[in-house]
């Protein structure tokens, strides 16, 4: 976006190049969002007649315990972002030191990202059940069972850890290693000659040098937590047990598609839209700084 030479324009061609994209976005993004806002002021089952009810859905929402549970659960996921960031950048820094087999590690840890949330959700739903393989191991060593997907407080933290920390690790390693690769190696050599150890080098050289990548990573994680969790939760816990792993996004699905309260679920969507707008503003500000 940097070539602004003169004021001459390229005529109709750019609009023709953009036409397919903009037509699709108008139909499948803008129209749905606008309709969604309108629907949030109505009572509608998703089919048949609808009734204008003003702000009633929003009033119901504010009084709805499930809505607040979903906000609380989403906030809990956000709390895993710092952990994810620290773990990922630390392991990337380990691998950068030229640990033998680092390429193999990087590739193997990427596999979960490759398989995607649906497959990983189902895989963990098998692995983590009470009678599953992991509990077999845990019982062998401790004699007790950890009810990963049954005890509410463990279930939500399992989802948070797996989704935010574990499932992003492979992606993050490739990402941070690429960013660290851009650092001039003579800086590291100089740090070494100065007698700086791993931690000092990490805080004085690595982290400042990959600051932009780090900020992008945090924004990316916010996007994942607010806007990309549905598939994993749907296949791992389906929001349960009870409503313990119910997030804002998952709540929209349940109220809209299982309970057929589309008008009401649209009000939840508007809240989600608001959060995404905030994230997007952060993202755009970051990019402006990057381009500057």
């Amino acid at each position, binding site marked *: 976006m940097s070539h602004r030479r003169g004021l001459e324009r390229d005529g109709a061609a750019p609009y023709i190049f953009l036409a397919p994209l903009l037509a699709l976005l108008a139909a499948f993004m803008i129209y749905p969002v606008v309709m969604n806002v309108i629907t949030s002021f109505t009572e509608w089952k998703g089919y048949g007649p609808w009734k204008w009810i003003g702000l009633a859905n929003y009033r119901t929402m504010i009084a709805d315990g499930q809505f607040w549970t979903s906000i609380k659960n989403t906030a809990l996921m956000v709390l895993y972002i710092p952990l994810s960031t620290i773990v990922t950048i630390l392991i990337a820094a380990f691998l950068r030191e030229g*640990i033998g087999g680092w390429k193999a590690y990087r590739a193997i840890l990427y596999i979960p990202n490759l398989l995607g949330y649906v497959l990983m959700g189902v895989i963990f739903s098998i692995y983590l059940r009470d009678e599953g393989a992991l509990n077999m191991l845990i019982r062998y060593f401790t004699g007790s069972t950890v009810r990963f997907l049954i005890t509410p407080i463990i279930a939500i933290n399992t989802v948070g850890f797996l989704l935010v920390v574990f499932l992003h690790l492979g992606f993050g390693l490739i990402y941070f290693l690429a960013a660290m690769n851009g650092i001039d190696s003579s800086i590291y050599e100089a740090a070494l000659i100065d007698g700086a150890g791993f931690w000092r080098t990490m805080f004085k050289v690595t982290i400042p040098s990959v600051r932009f990548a780090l900020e992008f990573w945090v924004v990316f994680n916010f996007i994942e937590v607010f806007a990309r969790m549905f598939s994993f939760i749907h296949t791992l816990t389906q929001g349960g047990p009870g409503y313990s792993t119910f997030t804002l996004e998952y709540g929209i699905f349940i109220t809209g598609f299982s309970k057929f309260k589309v008008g009401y*679920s649209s009000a939840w969507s508007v809240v989600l839209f608001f959060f995404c707008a905030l994230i997007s503003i952060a993202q755009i500000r970051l990019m402006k700084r990057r381009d500057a």
Partner: protein
Amino acid sequence: MRKASSFGPGTRIAVQAFMLLLVVASVLPLYNVVSASLKPINEYTINPLLLPQAPTLENYKYAAISGHLLRFTANSLTFVPIGVATYVVICVMAGYAFGKMRFAFRRPIFLLVLFMSIFPQLLLATQVSKLISLIHLTNTGLGVILAWISYFAPFGTYIMTTYFTDMPYELVEAARIDGASQYRILWSVMAPMAMPMVATLSIIGFQSMWNELPFSMLILQQESLRTVTVGIAVLRGQYGLRVPILSAALVIAMSVPLLVFLLFQRRITLGVTAGAIKG
């Protein structure tokens, strides 16, 4: 490659041990699924963890035929490539327009596209599936492909835009002096030069569409049309389905993404950083 390292030999061993442990922990769930898929149900019940005593392929037969996994894989292998090809063309055109052309409202339109790249699918799902049914495309490949392209194109466009922006403007000017039209410049000069990024974009599109759940779930309601991803999600919800059969279905579903990974590992590595790291 040999790098300046601040690790002494002791630290090196400790880190190596930690990494090995991490890899084992993250491979264990996958190993578990593969080993479960080879066990008869009564063996899995008493021995979910260890290697199968009497490996059987019965679960695969059941998952592939009765569980329709072969059918679902064929569906994905039809819809996804068509979707990716169209997506790439649309993103290249739009990325070139944003990256190298001058026109009114370029920046606001670009920011809007960027904003849309982070929309949650659940925000759109109800209305998108309504719209698809309104134009009579429910239970059609075309319907799901349209929904996929629209949803994933903003990010793809962003990636292509950053790539085209970083290409030297002199290329466009030289072609223009030679009298080439805008269309010729894009298709004969710029697009061929952008091929490395186009390959990366294709991988990104493939992964996004292959793993997509909510739209395909709502648009492809007929069982015979399901994609692998929808098929797996539905099997998971099927009450009383035996773990070894579900595991076999998972292994079948894993095969295509793993194959793509083995073939295009370098591209995938590049795809992760596309658009996000300067340079």
